[in-house]
């Protein structure tokens, strides 16, 4: 009659399945995922859709959209195909989004983890550095860095990563401060586990969910930052990027708005997809926060 507490509950389905079930409960997140897949496909198929250089002359300048099937979305004032520009731009945007985010999260996790775990003077020093970065507005710092390093695509990506690590650092620090007092950390210490192991193997996996969610937001922000730079004419002119296209389309905005509108829509949808995916991840990773 009495239930022995050694009887096991039935096994749960694997984590990935549970994760997917929770994720798909959010309709908007599914839309975001679909948009993201589309952008990803565009980036992958750019070479197939238009095997040539996207910056070459493909038709008469300022051909309106839907008039010539060789250039379905029209051409800009130099006769470059907007359609293939958007496909190649997806590559640049995704590349910048992913790499800059990795740089920012990497620096942020390292600094935040050290500051949060050790506390004391380590925390004081690292946080003062973080604050120094935070006092300078993001974009101004980015302009400065690009002005110094030059506007090659690698440097731009790195610079975007460097200006956006402060927020993840603060977040990781807060997570670590609350997690380091937990009993499972004491338990690991009691087993004789070293500090480095505790930070990266015990605490970090538990601190990851909010970081993953923030990473998706960060990707959207990085894409916007690159577009803004390109809009000001500081982007890498050797690549077709959405920001570059808008920047150049600006001068013909009144006569040929489509030059700026199509890449603009691409940016909006991409950023939107990251935000929606981020929200879905949040629901799936922190199921208790919202019921």
């Amino acid at each position, binding site marked *: *009659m*009495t239930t*022995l*507490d*050694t009887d*096991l*509950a039935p*096994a*749960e389905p694997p*984590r990935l399945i549970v994760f997917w079930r929770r994720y798909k409960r959010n309709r908007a997140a599914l839309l975001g995922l679909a948009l993201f897949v589309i952008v990803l496909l565009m980036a992958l198929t750019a070479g197939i859709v238009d095997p040539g250089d996207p910056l070459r002359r493909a038709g008469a300048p300022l051909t309106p959209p839907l008039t010539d099937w060789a250039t379905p979305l029209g051409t800009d004032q130099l006769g470059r195909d907007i359609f293939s520009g958007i496909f190649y731009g997806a590559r640049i945007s995704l590349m910048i989004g992913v790499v800059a985010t990795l740089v920012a999260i990497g620096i942020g996790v390292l600094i935040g983890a050290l500051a949060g775990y050790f506390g004391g003077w380590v925390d004081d020093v690292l946080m003062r550095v973080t604050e120094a970065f935070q006092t300078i507005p993001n974009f101004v710092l980015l302009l400065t860095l690009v002005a110094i390093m030059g506007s090659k695509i690698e440097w731009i990506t790195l610079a975007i990563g460097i200006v956006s690590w402060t927020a993840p650092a603060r977040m990781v620090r807060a997570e670590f401060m609350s997690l380091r007092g*937990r*009993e*499972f950390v*004491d*338990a*690991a*210490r*009691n*087993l*004789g*586990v*070293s500090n480095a*192991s505790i930070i990266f193997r*015990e605490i970090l*996996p*538990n601190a990851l969910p909010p970081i993953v969610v923030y990473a998706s937001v960060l990707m959207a922000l990085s894409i916007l930052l690159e577009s803004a730079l390109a809009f000001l004419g500081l982007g890498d002119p050797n690549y077709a990027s959405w920001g570059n296209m808008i920047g150049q389309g600006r001068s013909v905005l009144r006569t040929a708005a489509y030059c700026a509108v199509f890449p603009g829509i691409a940016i909006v949808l991409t950023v939107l997809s990251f935000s929606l995916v981020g929200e879905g991840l949040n629901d799936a990773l922190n199921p208790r926060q919202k019921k």
Partner: protein
Amino acid sequence: MTETTPVLQISGLKIALPKGSDRPYALEGLDLEINPGEIVCLVGESGSGKSLSAGAIMRLLPEPHVHVAEGSIKFRGEEIVAKSETEMRQIRGRDIAMIFQEPMTALNPQKTVGWQLDEVLRLHTKMSRKERRARAIEMLERVHLPDPPSAYNAYPHQISGGQRQRVMIAMALSLSPKLIIADEPTTALDVTTQLQILKLIRELQEQEGAGVLFITHDFGVVAEIADKVAVLRKGILVEQGPASEVLNNPQHAYTRALIGAVPALTPPPLKVPSTAPVVLKGTGLKKTFAARGGMLSGKRKAVTAVKDLTFELRQGETLGVVGESGSGKTTVSRIVTRLLECDAGKVEMDGKDLLALSPREMREMRKHIQMVFQDPMASLNPRKRVVDLIAQGPIVHGADPAKARADARRLLELVELSPASASRFPHEFSGGQRQRIGIARALALEPKVIVADEPVSALDVSVQAQVLKLLADLRDRLNLSLLFVTHDLRVAAQLCDRIIVMQKGEIVESGPTAEVFANPQHAYTQKLLSSIPGRDWTPPVIRTDAA
């Protein structure tokens, strides 16, 4: 009392849970009657649906996820289930009052005690400001708070836990309700305070003639206070009857098992000879938590958690450290394992002073002294599989990972868990099972000493009994030495050969458990022992199917 209408009459109550829960109904067919002047205890383990039944009476269920599916709840003959929200607001507080488990979270920390008492009166009566104040102070007096006028102006954090619970009771009773629902009101309190609060509830309830629905998991408390007892198991009422009947002559197998699991207050005979070698020795331990004041918050006083503590733990012995919250017993367990740096003193093991070792040497020594933590959920990394959790210690200390994992599976069997559960995550286990994993992890390094910090206080009684039995069993088989920290004297009586009684960081009494229990010397020990709820009730010896 002839033919009075019952204050509360519940019949056939069914509460539905949202889809995908472990069972469709939280409560299935609860029948309960409370007469004026009667205390009815609703007993059950966690997940039995006892708190939800209180929510249903107050109409405070998290609807629509959880809702009353069937049945009726009649309060003084009137159906509650059919009442509108406005009518319910009138009834809540005025006619039915509730006392919560955790008085700190139930009181608003931003407002004074007086303001909160005043609010209750303001909402439900037409008294003037002066009358309300007089009534509030009168209530504070009735719950025996020292200096009621100053308590009236105090903020919740400025008074002690027991006093906060008194304030909650004053709030609950200030409108002379006909029914008081007390949901585990003493669970968060120390034994001595618990006894005072139980007495207070009894006393006031007799004066007011109100009916009380007292929700608890503790049979000691039931023995102390109940007129009638109803036992719930997974939402089903298994037994109901007068307290003396249920406590001493339980009919249902589940009730028998629950009562059989209550540890008796008879300590075991001393079996370790005093000639056994000392494995762990603490001398002159001292720990003060330094005052930390911000620029604006002002300086706080330094708190001495442990002052001048000396103890000896012999091979194969269990040494209990008992005391109420704030006595420094948990600090002791953390100093000994050096999770907390100590201010002064020595902890010797194998002739080495653990506190003087370098961090590297200490990491090496840790395999000899392991710990079982209080909260099995918090102490297991939620993102690691059970087998990795158990094998982690040996791997850190240089064992071959494959062999360590094989040993971990063997250890699971030792703590009576199926080795098939090795690849699961901690959240898939129940509380008692998690604590077994915690014990397996501590054993994996084959330590000389295990420090257990309240290892069973987060568990239900029946599970508690099983885990205690496992610990005692393993200790005897593996000849372990245990340093066992607990606040529960019943648990200490079960397991400990010798005990140390601590008060405010000092040892007030120590000796063989049987002697201390039979003949306590210090006034504080006497007070502790006389405050154990239900100390006059000896659980009947019942043979259960499981035994």
